[in-house]
């Protein structure tokens, strides 16, 4: 099934751009952590084109921005430009590490948009525009995305302060060490978490005109006698099919979708801003709440990034525990998402209840080991926080060897050959895998399109290179395959679990002190894992202090939504609901 699984062949190249582009590189940054190159703003598109077309870096994984105002570190001592756009590119045919590029932008200047080369830059550039105020020239639809039109300022800038601002870094002096507290509400006359620019007069406030997607598609040209019109239909933010607070603006003609725009930000909880006030360790419980179905893998991804940055070793037993937790999580996620894809197809609740039954069994294990069902907060820098309690291993082995394989087979028997699932799923939501890659889509979605790209093989982290497992792929890139690939992946997870539970050694579970007083060395890091929903990456920049200078989450749910519009066009409204369901998003991670 997976002869062509992408594996890491060679270490990431030194950047060799050839003679024509050699002058585009202005320098390298942070030599000793991640190798990244600083590119001149006006040459960035040329460099990207070269990397994509000549060197095969076809996957723009991460695009974000860092505001260096007031930066105290040594690395940027002689740099004036305030903002820095960061790109991380991967080669999906060869595996291996990333090429990191930086572009330095002074405050009011624009950057050329990468959307013409990588369609997947769309949402990420809009996010940078929204939160940092960087304008991308040539972006087709540069609007705010997480906040609303009319919001005052760009909140991720270092000099933008929230209404409840107290200090730059926690623990706040008002709370620590004396343990006193004061209500923020008491300091603000209207007792709410809001702040308004001086001189603003609410009486004369006009809300900006609501955005409506324009459709490129013409009316029925071949049926001129029909006087039809396309209309705008809004789904959400409170809509039972959107899996949370998400909104789809569609332009439809009859039932057929002509254009679809995702609207998000209804759960934008400012992880990144809060993450820059928190110390390194304080962010760990916040990562739980990103993709709240999979707190264990979020923990792991963040811990890996910090370990890479600070050079922390992880003991053997902890590595195994991490794999075990992450694979259990994957099963939880995949069975859950299968249940809800079926829910969206109209098989109301029954498959979901089957999935939730298994989930409860696994959550019991999580609760026993971490104390919480959902928000496990289990990993630390250098290991995991606690060893297994008594009886845990036996129960886990029972699940992995007996119960879960049976449950997955049962789902398979009940669903895979189901007529309705086939009728509704075959050929719906089709997008060729090349387009998916260009749109920066990752995870089960691309494997359901036939590309065996799995970070556990393509750039192994932890101890995944020790396990014998396959990367399943399916050829059709439609809803049916996206359902089925999840089942197959859950079965592979069971295989990994069986091996890990068999081989796990005794020993300590936490090397060092778990990062309670961590000060990561100056530098930056981008590190990613194969989370159940796709590539979950953390981009961290450190100035050597107790808190991250920049804490960015590259979340698969958010970036996979790039494909929602293109995938839905031409299908019916009812299909769009399932297409969204089959992307498998979690709003906590979409909006962060």
């Amino acid at each position, binding site marked *: 099934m997976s002869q062509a699984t992408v594996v890491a062949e060679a270490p990431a190249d030194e950047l060799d751009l050839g003679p024509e582009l050699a002058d585009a590189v202005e320098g390298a940054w942070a030599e000793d952590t991640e190798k990244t190159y600083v590119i001149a703003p006006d040459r960035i598109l040329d460099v990207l084109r070269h990397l994509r077309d000549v060197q095969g870096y076809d996957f723009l994984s991460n695009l974000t921005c860092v505001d260096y105002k007031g930066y105290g570190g040594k690395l940027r001592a002689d740099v004036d430009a305030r903002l820095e756009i960061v790109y991380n590119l991967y080669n999906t045919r060869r595996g291996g590490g990333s090429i990191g590029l930086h572009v330095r932008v002074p405050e009011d200047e624009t950057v050329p948009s990468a959307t013409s080369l990588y369609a997947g830059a769309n949402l990420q550039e809009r996010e940078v525009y929204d939160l940092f105020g960087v304008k991308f020239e040539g972006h087709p639809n540069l609007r705010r995305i997480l906040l609303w039109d009319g919001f005052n300022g760009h909140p991720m800038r270092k000099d933008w302060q929230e*209404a409840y601002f107290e200090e730059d870094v926690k623990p706040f002096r008002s709370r620590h060490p004396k343990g006193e507290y004061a209500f923020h509400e008491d300091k603000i006359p209207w007792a709410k978490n809001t*702040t*308004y620019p*001086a001189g603003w007069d609410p009486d004369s406030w006009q809300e900006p005109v609501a955005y409506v997607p324009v459709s490129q598609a013409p009316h029925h040209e071949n049926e001129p006698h029909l006087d039809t019109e396309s209309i705008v239909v809004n789904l959400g933010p409170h809509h039972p099919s959107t899996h949370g607070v998400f909104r789809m603006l569609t332009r439809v003609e009859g039932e057929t979708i002509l254009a679809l725009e995702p609207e998000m930000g209804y759960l934008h909880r400012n992880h990144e801003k*809060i993450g820059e006030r928190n110390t390194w360790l304080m962010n760990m419980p916040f990562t739980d709440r990103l993709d709240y179905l999979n707190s264990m893998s979020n923990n792991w991804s963040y811990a890996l990034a910090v370990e890479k940055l600070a050079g922390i070793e992880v003991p053997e037993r902890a590595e195994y525990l991490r794999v075990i937790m992450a694979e259990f999580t994957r099963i939880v996620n995949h069975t859950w998402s299968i249940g809800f894809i079926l829910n969206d197809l109209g098989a109301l609740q029954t498959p979901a209840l089957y999935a*939730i039954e298994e989930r409860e069994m696994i959550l019991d294990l999580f609760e026993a080991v971490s104390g919480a069902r959902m928000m496990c907060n289990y990993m630390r820098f250098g290991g995991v926080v606690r060893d297994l309690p008594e009886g845990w291993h036996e129960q886990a082995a029972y699940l992995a060897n007996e119960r879960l394989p049976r449950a997955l087979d049962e789902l398979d028997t009940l669903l895979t050959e189901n007529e309705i699932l086939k009728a509704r799923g075959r050929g719906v939501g089709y997008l060729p895998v090349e387009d998916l890659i260009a749109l920066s889509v990752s995870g089960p979605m691309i494997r359901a399109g036939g590309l065996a790209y799995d970070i556990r093989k393509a750039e192994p982290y932890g101890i995944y290179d020790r396990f014998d497992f396959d990367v399943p792929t399916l050829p059709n890139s439609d809803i049916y395959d996206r359902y089925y690939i999840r089942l197959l992946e859950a079965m592979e997870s069971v295989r990994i679990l069986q091996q890990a539970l068999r081989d796990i050694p005794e020993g300590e579970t936490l090397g060092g002190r778990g990062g309670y007083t961590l000060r990561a060395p100056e530098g930056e890091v981008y590190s990613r894992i194969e989370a159940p929903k796709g590539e979950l990456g953390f981009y961290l920049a450190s100035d050597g202090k107790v808190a991250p200078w920049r804490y960015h989450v590259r979340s698969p749910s958010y970036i996979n939504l790039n494909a929602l519009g293109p995938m839905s066009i031409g299908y019916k409204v009812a299909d769009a609901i399932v297409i969204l369901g089959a992307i498998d998003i979690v709003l906590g991670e979409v909006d962060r």
Partner: protein
Amino acid sequence: MASLPPDFQQLKQDQLTPFLHDEIAVPDELQANVLITTVDKIYNWSRRSSMWPLLFGLACCAIEMIATAASRYDLARFGMEVMRPSPRQSDLMIVSGTVTKKMVPAIVRIYNQMAEPRYVLSMGACATGGGPFKEGYNVVSGIDKYIPVDVYVPGCPPTPEALIYGLLKMHEKVDRQSVTSVPWYRKDTSQFVPVPRLGPDVFDPRQVDLIKDTTLKAAAATTAAAANGASAGATEHARGPAQLSDKAIARMEEAKRRWREKKGLPE
């Protein structure tokens, strides 16, 4: 007719007893046909036995809400399994998760659309007070800043058991209400909550005067400072007075005193 086993009769009697009126005696010959109860009891019993929640999830807590409704915890035992997506058909809004500024106008609108009697349960730390994300620039510190809440369930997320406990508390609350005094049968009491608007930041139409007072004053101060040649920009954002009000200080002192008392610390 085959008579039911006696213990079943007893069970039935036990369940009926709370609803029976204890002052008006029913003649013996009518005992099997007539029950005398009060309007309140019947009214509340029927309301709380089929309290339909709004199908409406905000964040992580919603997942635990789904788990509560699912196989293991089975909300159907309380007559609550019918989650209605339409606010018109639902009695209870479970605010399950972080309320953001972008979302709060929609929530208030949904609340306004619910028919009375309606109840609100705030599930989790976020809906109650902002939770871990309280300081966030897009986070509302508690849904009760905008709409009235009946029951708060703490936790992050509350376990399904906790949520069920909160729902049972809600039932108790319903049981204590009386048709003669509930607000929704009185004149002029049932009013729409003004829907918050999205300006440079979200604002509550009820507080416009207060906001105007501060922002316009701040602008005047900036202009005056600029005119005096002093450094402008110090009052760029209207944050309001940093000094705490007397009421707030008294509240904090009281809270501290209670805390000391509880811990047995000296004053």
